C-alpha cells in the first residue's frame, strides 16, 4: 500500500517534469530526456525508458498530443506538444507541488529549531 502511494507520487512528478519541459515548445522523447537531465544539473537521472510509458499516459489523458516531424539532424521523430488541458494540469500540479514543498519546508524548519 505504502509503496504504491510512493510510486504514484513519483509518477506524478515525472509527468509534471515532462509537461514543464514541453512549455518551451514541442519536443521529441530524446530531447525531453536530455532537457530533464540537464536542467536539473543531472540530479534527476531518469531512466530514459520510463519516459515513453509516461508520454503514452499523458497522451491518453489528452494533456499532450503527438505528431511525426523532422528532428534537428533531419531524422524522423515523434514530437509531443502541450495541449490546453495539459497546460492547465501543469499549473495545478505546480501549485500543488509548491504548497507541498512549502509545507514540508515549514515542518523541517520547525524541526530544525527544536533541535537547536
Amino acid at each position, binding site marked *: 500500500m505504502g509503496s504504491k502511494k510512493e510510486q504514484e507520487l513519483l509518477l506524478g512528478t515525472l509527468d509534471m517534469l515532462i509537461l514543464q519541459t514541453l512549455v518551451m515548445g514541442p519536443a*521529441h*522523447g*530524446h530531447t525531453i530526456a536530455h532537457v530533464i537531465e540537464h536542467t536539473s544539473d543531472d540530479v534527476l537521472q531518469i*531512466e*530514459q*525508458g*520510463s519516459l*515513453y*510509458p509516461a508520454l*503514452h*499516459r499523458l497522451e*491518453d489523458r489528452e494533456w499532450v498530443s503527438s505528431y511525426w516531424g523532422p*528532428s534537428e*539532424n533531419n*531524422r*524522423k*521523430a*515523434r514530437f509531443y506538444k502541450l495541449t490546453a488541458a495539459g497546460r492547465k494540469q501543469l499549473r495545478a500540479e505546480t501549485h500543488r507541488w509548491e504548497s507541498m514543498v512549502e509545507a514540508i519546508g515549514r515542518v523541517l524548519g520547525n524541526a530544525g529549531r527544536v533541535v537547536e
Partner: protein
Amino acid sequence: MSLRRYLRRREWDEERARELEAHLEQETADNVARGMTAGEARRRAYMKLGNPTMIREEIWKMNSLVSVEDLGRDVRYALRQLRRSPGFAAIAIVTLALGIGVNTAIFSMVNGLLFSSLHVREENRLQEIGSRQQGTPWQPQFSLAEYEAMHGQTSDVFSGVVGDAYGLDGLSMEGNKPDRAFTDYVTGDFFDALGVEPYLGRLFHAGEGVTPGADPVVVLSYAYWKRHFAADPNVVGKHVLLDGHPMTVVGVTAKDYRGVNTALSVEAYLPLAMIVPIESTPLSEYRKPTNRNLRLYGRLRPGVARQQATATLAVVARRLAAEQPVADKNVELASFPMWVGRNAGFDPQNAIGEVAWFFLGLAGVVLLLACVNVANLLLVRATVREREMVIRSALGAARTRLIRQMLTESILLAVCGGVAGIGLGLWGSHLLSSINLGTDLPLHFDFGFDWHVLAFSMAVAVAAGALVGIVPALRLARANLNMVLREGGRGVAGGGHRFRDALVTVQVGSAMILLIIAGLFTRSLTQSEHAELGFNPANVMTMMMDPGEIGYNDPRARDFYKDLLQRVRALPGVKSATTALMVPMGLVGNGGDTITVNGYQPPAGQSALVIAYNLIATDYFATLQIPLDTGRNFSDADDENHLYVAIVSEAMAKQYWPHQDAIGREFTMNSDPAHPLQVVGVARDARYQGFRQAPAPYFYVPFLQHYATNSLETLEVRTVGEPGTTLPVLERSINDMAPNLPVFDVKTLHQALYTPNGLLLFQIIATLAGIMGTLGLVLAIVGVYGVLSYVVSQRTSEIGVRMALGAGRGDILRIVYKQGMWIVGIGLAVGLAASFGIAHLLHSLIVVSPGDPATYLGVSDALAAIAMLACYVPARRAMYVEPMKALRE
C-alpha cells in the same frame, strides 16, 4: 478512448517501436559525436534507454483490457483442463447438477405456492386482512357486516377494500348436463381494485353484487373459457345456467390471472350478492354477523405502510366490537402481505408454508453435500496439480492470477452443473406438478418456471461454484514454493488432510440428518396408515353430488336424497348406504361451528371452540361401522317437525359432560340459535382430520333437520364385495333419477384417505425426504470412498515400508480402517445431535416422536454399515499393496 486503443494496439505498437528506434539512433549519433566507436555508441544508447521490448510491453499492457483478456484465456484454459480429465468433470458436473436440480425443483414448488405472480397490478401494494378474537390464531374469514365496516372506514389507508367467497356450482348451457365449476363470488369493485383486465367483454362494475339477485351476470376465467367454451370468441352475451339460474356471460378474465389463491383455480366469477339466489342462502343467513365466508383484500394507498393500515384497522375493530358485542367481542384486525395468507390462513404454523420452507432447507443440505464432494475432488486435483502451479508461480504468475484461474475452473464446473441442474429441476418440478391429488376440485399444483426460479437457480449455481472453488484455490495459493519443489512432486499432502477429513465428517453428518428426517416421515406415514381410524374404510364407495347445481330447491333436494337412498339400498351387493356432508380427510365441509353448551363455561380467557360436525342420513354409523356407545341412532322420524337432535363423539361428551351421562343434554350451534340440539347418542371417536392428535370433539346432526343449509352431500355405500363393482349400478341409479346431475370425487373410502387433507401430504413429504436422504447417502458414500482411496494412494509407499518392516495385512487393514472410522464416527455423532435438534423443530409435522428410537437406531446402524463398506474397498487395496513395488516407486 481506451477501447479504440485496444482495438488498434498492434498498429500503435509498431509506431512505438519506430519511436524507440528513433530515440536509439539519436542517442547513438550523439555518442558517436562524443567520440565513441559505432558499436560502443549503440551499446551505451541501449543501456541508457533500457530494454525497448519491455517498454513496448508496458505500453501494450496500458492499451489492453486486462481482465477481459485474462478471463477469456482462463476460460479456454479451464475448458482444456476439464477436457483432459473427462471422468472428473463428469462426476463433478453430475454431482452439482443433482444438488442444484433438487434446489430448483423444491424452489419452484415454494415459488409456485407462495411467491409466483398473481398477475394483478402492483401486487406488493395488495394486502389481505386477518382477524382474531382473544388469542385464537389469525384467520381470514369475515362477515358481510365486517366487510361493510372495513369498506367504509379505511379509505385513508386503502384505495379499496374488496372481498370474495368461494363456491362450487353447476354451470351449463341451456339443456346440457352442467359442469361443476369452482366459483368466486366477488364484490363489484373486486377486479378494479386488483387491476385485472378483461380478455373479452367486461368484468364487474362497482354497483354489481350489492343487491341479492339483481345482477345475473357471470365472468369466466380464461382457462375455463378455453376448455369448456372452446375459446368461443362470441361467448359474451351467451346465456348459461348456474345451479339452474339463468345468467349472461359478460366477459372473460385476463389470460394469466388465476385468482388470488394460487392453489385453487377459480373457473367463474359472480357478483357477491348472487350467492343468495344461486346457493339458495336465506337473506337472514347471508347478513348474519356469524356467517363468515368472505376473504378481504385491500390495496394500500401510495406511500402508506402496512403498519398504518393495521393501525386504522384497529380503530375499525374497536368500533365493530362496540356495534356487535356478540359476534365481534374483543376482535382484532391486521393487514398482511398477500403471500402470508396465500393458500391457507395466517397461522405461522400453516402446513404448506412450513413444509415448503423445510424442504428448501433439506435441499440446501443436499447442495452442501454435493459442494463438499466436488470441493474434495478439486482438493485432490489441486494436490496433484500443485507442481504445475508452483512452476507457473516460479515463472512469474501472480498468485491472484492462479487463484482466479482455479476459480474460473470451479465456476465453469458450476455453470455446467447449473445448466444440467436446471434441466433436472424442471423435470423434478414437472413430476411434482403431476402428482395425482385424488380429487376433482380444480386444485392448481402446477409449478411453472418463471424468472424467480431461474434467478434462484443461477444464484445457487454460482454460489456453489465459488464455494467449491475457493477452498482448493486458497490452499494452493498458500502452498510453499520451495517445499513443493523439494518434495519432488509428491505435493504437500500433509497440511490438507485434516481439512479433507473435516469435509467428509460434514458429509456423513449431513447425510445422517437427511436420512433421519426421511426416516421420521416414513415412520409417520406408516404409523398414520395403521392408525386407529374409528371407522372401517374397506369396501365403501363414495361419490359427491349437489342437486342444487341442477336447480333443485331445498325440499326437492331432500326428497332426491331420500329416494336415492331407497333405490341404492335395494341394489344387489349393497350392504348399507347413507349420505354425509363430510368424508373423512375430505376437502369439503370442514368448517364446523362454535357451540354454546347449557351449564358449560369455557375456561377464562378462552373463546368458544369451533367444533366440526357432519350432516348425515340414517344408517351412517352402520355404513362406516362407527359403533354407538350409548343412546340411539337417527331415524326418519328425526325431521324438522320434531325435536332437533344430535349424536356427539366420545371426545365431545368427555369435554362437556365429564363423568356424566351426555344423553338428554342440550347445546346450541351458534349459527342456528333457534334450534337447541338434544343429545340422543354417543358415538365412538372417528378420525375426520389429521393423524397427529387424538380425535377432536365432533358431532353429527340429521340431514333431514338441516337440509336447508346445504344440498351438497356424499353418497357412501358399503358393499358386500369389491366396491368398484357396484359403481355402474350406482351411477345408473343416479342417472335414472336426475340425468343432468354431475357426480364427482368418485372413489372408495380407502382412496379418499390418500388426499391432500389425509395421507397424501405425508406421502409426498416422505417420498421427497426419502429421495433427498438417498441422494445424501450416495453423495456421502462417494465422499468417504473417494477420500479414503486418495489417502491410501498417498500412503502407498508408507504402507510398503511398514510391510517391509513386518506389518501384516491385518495391521494395514486396521490402520486404514481406523482412519476411516474416526471420520465416520465423528460425522455420525455430529449428525445425530443435529438431527435431534432439527427433528424437534418438525414436531408439528410428524406423527412419531421427534426422538423416535427406531428411526435413530435404524439410520445410524445402516449408515455406519454402509460407511464401513465404503472404507472396505480402499482398505483392501491398501492390504494388497506389493511392498517391493511400492518402495521402488
